[in-house]
């Protein structure tokens, strides 16, 4: 595995139409290799639009998106898919297949039309399934999985792309505590191995424990970014989420913990 590459959103503005509503405005984000960068924020703040911008499915009105020095907006989809493995927010298969065959699709960016997967491809696929803990049900069908299992299988497909950058949109939705923690541990190991890990998440407290950098989105703009301790300030989060809350520092683990408050009657 090659080392990670910096994923840079350079003053990016996203809009469906040239003169339409700006879904993301002048976002500047730099996600370095070897770290987990978490993009958080309320619903509709533009988090997932950033992911779709990378995929080329969301028109980029201004700015650049770079993987290392490669301008992803000028690259082909195939070139992009060899640098960034994206796990989209939602995916439902109309035509079920075996888990192993599904994960193997992660090698598509590297295979020509008539290529059979090489020994290297097979090893990468197996490694991806090991690290996301889906080997035990590799031979099951995708329509026989629980929501949590399916989520891990999708992660395995992204890992099978074996790219310098991982970009995951809500990778822990549908996961119970154990699998949520296991997934974050997996991502932490990927980052430790030198990869660039970027994830969009709603689980602020967990993100604060695992991420090296948090980017807080609010109304299409980056409202704050930096280490969790700097971003996880009660005043900032209350303003962004529009809800009273307390940030405490868990004495056991030393990470900021978010507690939303009941509204006084």
């Amino acid at each position, binding site marked *: 595995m090659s080392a990670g590459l910096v994923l840079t959103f350079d003053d990016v503005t996203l809009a469906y139409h040239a003169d339409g509503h700006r879904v993301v405005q002048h976002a500047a984000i730099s996600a370095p290799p070897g770290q987990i960068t978490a993009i958080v924020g309320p619903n509709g703040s533009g988090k997932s639009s950033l992911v779709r911008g990378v995929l080329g499915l969301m028109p980029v009105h201004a700015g650049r998106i770079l993987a290392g020095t490669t301008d992803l907006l000028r690259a082909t989809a195939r070139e992009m898919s060899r640098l960034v493995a994206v796990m989209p927010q939602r995916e439902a298969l109309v*035509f079920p297949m075996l888990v192993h065959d599904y994960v193997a*699709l992660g090698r598509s*960016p590297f295979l020509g039309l008539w290529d059979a997967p090489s020994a290297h491809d097979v090893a990468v696929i197996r490694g991806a399934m090991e690290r996301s803990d889906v080997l035990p049900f590799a031979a099951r069908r995708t329509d026989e999985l629980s929501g949590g299992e399916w989520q891990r299988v999708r992660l395995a497909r992204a890992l099978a792309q074996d790219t310098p950058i991982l970009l995951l949109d809500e990778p822990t939705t549908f996961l119970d505590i154990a699998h949520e923690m296991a997934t974050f541990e997996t991502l932490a190991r990927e980052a430790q191995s030198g990869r660039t890990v970027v994830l969009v998440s709603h689980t602020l407290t967990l993100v604060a424990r695992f991420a090296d950098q948090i980017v807080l989105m609010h109304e299409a703009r980056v409202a704050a970014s930096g280490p969790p301790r700097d971003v996880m300030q009660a005043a900032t989060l209350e303003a962004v989420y529009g809800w009273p809350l307390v940030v405490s520092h868990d004495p056991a683990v030393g990470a900021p913990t978010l507690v939303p408050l009941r509204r006084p009657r």
Partner: protein
Amino acid sequence: MSITATYRQPAVLWIATGVTLLVLIVAGLGIGAVSVSPMAVLQALAGQGDAINIAIVRDLRLPRVVLAMLVGCALGSSGAALQGTLRNALAEPYLLGVSGGAAVGAVLALIVGVTATAAVPLAAFGGAVVAVLLVLALARAAGGARDPRTLLMAGVIIGAFANAMILILLADVSPERVRGALWWMAGSLSDASWLRVGWLAVYVLLGVALLVTRGRLLDVLALGDDSAAALGADVGSATRQVFLISALLAAASVSAAGLIGFVGLVVPNIVRAFGVVRHRALIVASALGGASLMLLADLLARTVRAPLELPLGAITAVIGVPVFLLRLRRLR
């Protein structure tokens, strides 16, 4: 468990497909007003044995059998490709109105005097492309080009409109100049000449080959736009390519045999039931399976009420509707 190289295809599928096709070819050549035994069929094909048998098998029945196979190949493979691209197990050229558009294009060409056997499929292709664009626009206006039910509704409406157009266009055209409306709307293989078969073969083999080369693209398109893009597909361009190739295949089959529905629906769903998910294999198996289904349907059309010949499109609909209903139940 051991993880070996993926993409395995069940051998039983290919054996079943091949044996079924061979049996149906021999049956199609042997069964009719004059019965020819399987052995005599094989001898006649080789140009040996009874001269009358040779004439019946090689000159009367063989063009029709080959025509049936090519039409089935076109319908089966385009159904498989459309289903993958639209992520809709009920998609196929007839139900999507694509065949109807192709028929209107072919009828228009014949009315204005284009009769070249090679050119009619191209006019049908134009009609099919217009139908695709209309169906997608209609579904989008109704709120969901991705919703299988909305898309099918749009297709059925365009198909009905196409039928009306055919009836109107052919109302005052003499049957000697142009085949009648019934021929187009009910489907028929009765017009099998080697010239027609030859041109159809060119279009069908080209179309199937183009689809096969997009097998890997179809694999990822079937996952959804976001995942397809994540795995390196240029979603917009890939979707357009598959639509155009499928329209070409539907157009070729319609100009040779009229409107024949449900083959493109039934066959890929049966092939998938064998565990085939890779589109390269799915398209080839659906082409071969489509050939078999058309041979079977034509055999039924010719024999069930012999010497009467039943409309081919009616036979495929009788076979296809139960499959449609079974599949519809699983759509949620």
